[in-house]
């Protein structure tokens, strides 16, 4: 549970400012970075976990981080959550009407005020939708990371699989599924709330 939220929080802290930066900069960096994060998404979850563990092990001589447990799990989850948040922040900001931005400038708002008073509020429904997608995939992924010893509901599923016990598998699966559905509904509601206002 904490693992899900911590990784989601870290992903948001990276992806939202990056998305704002990309939307603001008119350079060619944006498509490159967006494609890069999209590529991460295409790597199968299991493979990415294995990759991160191997890379951490290889770096162990220089950085003595733990190669199993929470850290690799966190890295994988953050990497996975980046894309939906980043791309939705980016497209959300770009869909704000140029006319509205023009008026905001014309009224004498500083670039920062335009961002916080106008651009972010107007792209909030799309941004929240990105966080929702990221959260649901993270809750799904987090069970996989128990393979590298991050614990949680995934442990129950893996144990159940090894010992062929339906009860254990369900005890891990059902709460995970219910959690995902619950947060999906909550964040959809929050997103709708912001859309309905305007």
């Amino acid at each position, binding site marked *: 549970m904490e693992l899900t939220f911590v990784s989601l929080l870290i992903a948001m802290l990276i992806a939202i400012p990056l998305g704002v930066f990309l939307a603001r900069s008119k350079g060619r960096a944006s498509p490159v970075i967006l494609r890069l994060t999209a590529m991460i998404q295409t790597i199968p979850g299991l493979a990415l976990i294995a990759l991160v563990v191997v890379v951490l092990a290889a770096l162990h001589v220089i950085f003595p981080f733990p190669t199993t447990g929470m850290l690799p799990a966190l890295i994988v989850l953050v990497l996975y959550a980046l894309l939906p948040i980043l791309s939705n922040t980016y497209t959300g900001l770009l869909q704000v009407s140029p*006319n509205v931005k023009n008026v905001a400038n*014309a*009224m004498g708002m500083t670039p920062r005020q335009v961002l916080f008073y106008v651009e972010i*509020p*107007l792209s909030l429904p799309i941004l929240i939708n990105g966080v929702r997608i990221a959260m649901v995939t993270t809750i799904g992924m987090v069970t996989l990371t128990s393979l590298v010893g991050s614990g949680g509901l995934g442990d129950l599923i893996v144990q159940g699989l090894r010992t062929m016990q339906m009860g254990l598998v369900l005890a891990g699966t059902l709460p995970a599924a219910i959690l995902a559905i619950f947060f999906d509904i909550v964040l959809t509601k929050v997103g709708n709330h912001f859309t309905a*206002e305007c």
Partner: protein
Amino acid sequence: MIRFKGIWKTFPPNHTVLEDFNLEIREGETLVILGKSGSGKTTALQLINRLIDPTKGEVFVGGKNILFLDPIELRRNIGYAVQEIGLFPHMTVEENIAIVPKLLGWGDKKIDQRIDQLMEMLGLDPAKYRKRYPLKLSGGQRQRIGVARALAADPPIVLMDEPFGALDPITRERTQKEFLELKSKMKKTVVFVTHDLYEAVTMGDRIALMDQGKLLQVATPHMFVENPPSAFEDDFLGQHRFQLSLLTKTITECMDPSIGKQSAISPRLSPQTTLMEALNIFREENIKALPVFSNSSYRGEIRKEKLLDQVLDLLMQEPKNYETADR
């Protein structure tokens, strides 16, 4: 009040939008910049609040070269109204109006009073509409909020870019009238951009006609209709001359000067009343003659018959003989 001096504006690679643009806008007047899309009229407008900076030349506002002023500071002291979509959809009516006063650091109480005052001035009940979101208002109401927002911090200059463009013709005409009335009560310099000829002659004290980045003519609406630039006349003005004359000609020509007797009939005309306005009043009132007053002193009267005669005269001149025009 506002002066453009030798302005050139080129967008990369080499698209010239303004070519040696010179214009002076007087304090307190409404200057309409009239032109087709792509004529450079919006660019000219946005030079005033530095949304666009010139490639060459200088812009003066209140005697100061604005290229040396902080654009943020400058913009907070210039009202800006565009088509209705310019309202922020995520803010309520009161939040929209409060933006510039808040940026200027006004106190909450002062802002609150100002919102009520503006909304009442524009005929919107504050109690009913303050907390509404723009999408829950009609087009005409949104437009009025847009005007209220532009006037919120009481700026001496107001820029309007096709502000009534998105309204249906009837609402549009009503909003124009309301704005004129409002304008007559305030001392504001208004720069108004439009491509609508009728709007230009109704709203403007003077009209600046632009085409392909060049200023063709600056004239009062009346002069503009009587002596338009020849190219423009062939294109467009010819077929509309009669209607435009009604909108711009004043009643002075057909007025019978004061003979001493002063009638007490209620609707009073003024020497600035246009033929069109006079016709409308006669249609509504169904009387034979109306008095003309200027600064509450009696100047004479207008007889309905004579007014109709002049309108007929105007109509007979149509179509104009183009062979005399220079070609």
